[in-house]
């Protein structure tokens, strides 16, 4: 008898239209838990190195975790992974909503897709049954329209969908996959991989699912969240993300005009408070979650914004707002909606437009390149036009759809200095000139510039229960900060394996209690941190196999220079300190100094010698 998982992974060969079910042993689940653990497992086992991420040999893995679908707040999530077409490195994004839980309830713990369908298809999974359906009639449609048709086609009005829109179909390198019309597996182009496979959607409905080992304990844990909602999650419940725009300007953390400036008039005009007061019609929750932090906005003019696509998060407000020099809230909401319709990652889309705006202001792009669009910072109509052009790969949109790194290479003339990305992934809306540990994280994280489950130095200065009892100063980038970063991330990545939401503030003891109550295992904190560390090492190993090395762990040039004014105008990241922090981090992680590659000893210690074999690591070389 197993608890928490189904012991069924769905294998779909889209080229041959073949479906089979794999039944991994319990040891598989206990060693990898799900999410990133499972994604890295399949990518390392089944991909050769140097394959084309948009070719048929890439695989696309949908992976909930062992606690997904359990009746607990934050338990409705799934990861999606593949080799990234944006970075060429390990690709993974996590997403909320209901789809992940629904997949578990339909009898599956994950889906591994390979090959490429000859013509557009979608997958229909319902209570253990799986069908590949024709999707020619859905290709090109916004996801709101295609979801409606899919639900009619399958005769199930509550079918949950993970879909791509035009951006994914056109293989925009930062296209995302969207669950339930409004929850994005946003980053590093998983939607482009889905598009490359001619897969429009995966629709799911399930009424069963695994049993829980200790349902009473789960009720108790949920009751704790409800009873302490105001204290622990009050502001998220009231506003969602984006309620600290003024503080962002005060501290220099709000990216402004492509991370160049600090002065931004009236930041509160694009805040979650302003949204609540003007365009918000409600708040919605993900599966089983009382925090209910998802905004829903509706606008009629000057732009019609359809509430079925939710509303903008902080990242989106800053990416299309301050980072493009725009403080028109309605326009930002429209940009968000356009991205949802056509499944574009809002962080990368906003960032690549800001990059283009800076190139335009510096005459590296001209009106000939932009087909007459005056692409200056603050130009609302230009921003909205470019979002649509990226989704359709029209005009300059085709160049920008390649992502900032490739666009800068093609523009040349020194455009690279305006390109704010790490390994090709556009930087999210947190500035490493303020948060130095976060900058180390941007540098070394396997997917590129990733702010989730990273160290936010302003927020976490010590972790007493992990033995870090003295606060580490904000500006520190020495061994103490590296240790803080490593412990924080080695713990937090468990949320990407189990999968749990970062915005439900379970502490480490509660997470252990959740694992025990769902699975019945005698787990402890040590075990779950080892699962997390295992997945970090497997993702690192994937990148090492792809040829990534020490020099790729770096920040864009912009962060080595101060902002033009404001709180961070006389400080920047010191490249020597960053290089030193990397050395310390590699040593602490058990990685070599030359490439940052895990040693054979480290991989043996983590009980994954097969990963060392994949890298050809001998004991001698360790």
């Amino acid at each position, binding site marked *: 008898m197993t608890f928490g998982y189904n012991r069924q992974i769905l294998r779909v060969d889209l080229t041959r239209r073949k479906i089979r079910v794999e039944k991994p042993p319990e040891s598989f689940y206990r060693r990898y838990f799900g999410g990133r653990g499972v994604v890295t497992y399949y990518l390392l086992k089944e991909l050769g190195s140097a394959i084309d991420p948009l070719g048929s040999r890439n695989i696309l893995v949908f992976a909930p975790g062992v606690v997904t679908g359990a009746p607990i707040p934050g338990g409705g999530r799934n990861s999606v992974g593949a080799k990234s077409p944006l970075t060429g490195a390990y690709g993974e994004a996590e997403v909320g909503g209901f789809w992940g839980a629904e997949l578990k309830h339909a009898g599956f713990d994950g889906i591994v897709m390979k090959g490429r369908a000859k013509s557009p298809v979608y997958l229909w999974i319902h209570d253990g049954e799986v069908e590949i359906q024709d999707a020619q009639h859905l290709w090109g449609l916004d996801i709101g329209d295609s979801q409606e048709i899919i639900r009619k086609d399958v005769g199930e009005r509550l079918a949950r969908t993970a879909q791509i829109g035009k951006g994914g179909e056109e293989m925009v390198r930062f296209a995302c996959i969207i669950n339930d019309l409004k929850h994005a597996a946003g980053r590093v182009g998983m939607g482009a991989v889905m598009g490359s496979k001619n897969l429009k959607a995966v629709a799911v409905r399930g009424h069963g699912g695994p049993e829980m080992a200790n349902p009473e304990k789960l009720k108790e844990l949920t009751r704790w969240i409800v009873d*302490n909602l105001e*204290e622990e999650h009050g502001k998220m419940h009231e506003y969602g993300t984006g309620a600290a725009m003024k*503080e*962002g300007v*005060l501290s220099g953390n709000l990216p402004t005009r492509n991370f160049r400036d600090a002065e931004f008039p009236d930041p509160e005009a694009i805040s*979650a408070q302003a949204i609540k007061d003007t365009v918000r019609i409600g708040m919605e929750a993900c599966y089983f979650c009382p925090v209910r932090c998802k905004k829903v906005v509706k606008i009629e003019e000057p732009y019609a914004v359809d509430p079925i696509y939710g509303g903008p998060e*902080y990242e989106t407000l800053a990416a299309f707002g301050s980072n493009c020099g725009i403080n028109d809230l309605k326009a930002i909401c429209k940009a968000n909606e356009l991205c949802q319709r056509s499944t574009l990652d809002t962080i990368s889309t906003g960032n690549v437009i800001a990059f283009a705006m800076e190139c335009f202001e510096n005459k590296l792009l001209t009106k000939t390149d932009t087909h007459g669009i005056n692409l200056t910072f603050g130009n609302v109509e230009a921003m909205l036009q470019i979002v649509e052009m990226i989704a359709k790969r029209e005009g300059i949109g085709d160049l920008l759809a390649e992502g900032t790194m490739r666009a800068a290479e093609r523009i040349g003339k020194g455009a690279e200095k305006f390109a704010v990305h790490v390994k090709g992934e556009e930087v999210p809306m947190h500035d490493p000139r303020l948060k130095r540990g976060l900058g180390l994280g941007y540098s070394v994280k396997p997917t590129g510039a990733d702010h989730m489950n990273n160290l936010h130095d302003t*927020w976490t200065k010590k972790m007493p229960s992990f033995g870090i009892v003295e606060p580490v100063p904000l500006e520190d980038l020495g061994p103490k900060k590296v240790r803080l970063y490593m412990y924080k991330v080695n713990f937090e990545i468990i949320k990407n394996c189990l999968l749990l939401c970062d915005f439900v503030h379970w502490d480490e003891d509660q997470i252990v209690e959740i694992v025990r109550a769902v699975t019945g295992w005698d787990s402890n904190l040590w075990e779950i941190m080892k699962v997390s560390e295992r997945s970090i090492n497997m993702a690192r190993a994937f990148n090492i196999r792809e040829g990534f090395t020490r020099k790729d762990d770096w920040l864009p040039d912009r962060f080595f220079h101060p902002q033009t004014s404001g709180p961070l105008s006389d*400080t920047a990241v010191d490249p020597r300190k960053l290089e030193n922090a990397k050395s310390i981090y590699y040593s602490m992680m058990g990685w070599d100094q030359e490439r940052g590659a895990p040693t054979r000893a480290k991989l043996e210690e983590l009980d994954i010698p097969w990963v060392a074999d994949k890298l050809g690591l001998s004991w001698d070389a360790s």
Partner: protein
Amino acid sequence: MIQVKAYGILKKHLDGKDKAEFSLERGSTVSNLFRKLRKTRSDRWMVVVNGKIATENTILNEGDIVSIFEAIAGGTCTWNLEKRKFSRNAFLAEYVNMVS
């Protein structure tokens, strides 16, 4: 005198006001100022002196303007740092303070 400006929930340390003035001994640091504001401070306070990010060791001089506010997570400030239980009424009072 040193002028202190507080934002959001931290206004409570200035008796609910936006700003207040303090006199400190010569050579006092941000850390000394925090001790004056309350006995124990949270690690999640942010401090800006004369418009520039400062640390606890930054020395304060006559005429300096010090801004204090909470750290940011998910683009949203922490709601309650002391893990106090509070009633619905107290919650609303804090909330009104926050957005006013």
